[in-house]
């Protein structure tokens, strides 16, 4: 806020108004930023002796509404939350559940057997199993010298 102004009537209320406006706008922006920054769905990665296990909570999603693809070391999940019927906004007394379509990609570890990948979807919980590739024996590289 400018402290000193030439040729202008000092108007504290207008300044205050402007300050509050600015503050509210920044709060709003932060709020949206935080919401957008959070990835959906949230995912956990675990490691067991023979596999990596990815889990995600995806309620209100039917198996046919979910797509899992793997290409170039990138696992892509996409889907949408099922709304059997359109519900008019004014009929809601409370609305807390997220809605809509989503997509998320994540790189998978290098040493996995891509063809052995399996996904299980039960009670709204997705479990993707990425079996580890067997440890390769060190390979001797012949060295030639001229």
């Amino acid at each position: 806020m400018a402290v000193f102004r030439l040729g202008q009537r000092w108007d504290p209320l207008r300044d205050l108004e402007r300050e509050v406006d600015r503050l509210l706008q920044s709060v709003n922006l932060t709020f949206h930023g935080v919401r957008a920054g959070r990835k959906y769905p949230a995912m956990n990665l675990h490691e067991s002796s023979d596999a990596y296990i990815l889990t995600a909570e995806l309620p209100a999603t039917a198996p046919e509404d979910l797509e899992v693809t793997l290409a170039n070391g990138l696992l892509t999940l996409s889907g949408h939350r099922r709304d059997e019927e359109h519900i008019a906004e004014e009929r809601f007394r409370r609305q807390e559940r997220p809605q809509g379509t989503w997509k998320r990609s994540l790189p998978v570890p290098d040493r996995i057997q891509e063809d052995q990948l399996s996904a299980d979807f039960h009670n709204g919980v997705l479990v993707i199993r990425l079996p580890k590739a067997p440890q390769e024996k060190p390979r001797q590289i012949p060295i030639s010298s001229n």
Partner: protein
Amino acid sequence: MSIDPPDRTQHLVPAAQAGDSKSASSERFVFTPPIDIFETSEGLMLRADLPGVSLDSLELQIQDNRLTLFGRVETVLPDDAVPLHCEFEVGDFLRSFILSDEVDYERISARLSHGVLEVELPRATQAEPRRIQVNAD
């Protein structure tokens, strides 16, 4: 219908309180699930996201005018799994609602599919106005 204030924070409760029988000493997370409540032609519909809750691990009960849902979530991970990256915690779901008189308690029905609990709360049929005879002494 009144609803407990949305409580995004998670609580750690002793396992015994959360109904865990096999490991009484461990603590479990209990979350408040997100819900939708909307009006239908017959009354109200309540939907709650309960990922990981199965039909066997869900308890839905009405005591007096309080509807309580409690869903236990079993881990889907093998015993030797160690976390590498965690974006969400796994825990049970608990939430309760105070039902108003406009709900017909006897006809409440519920179903669970794709990790979503759907509770139908039919409106009670209005009692017919009854004329009361006024007698003079």
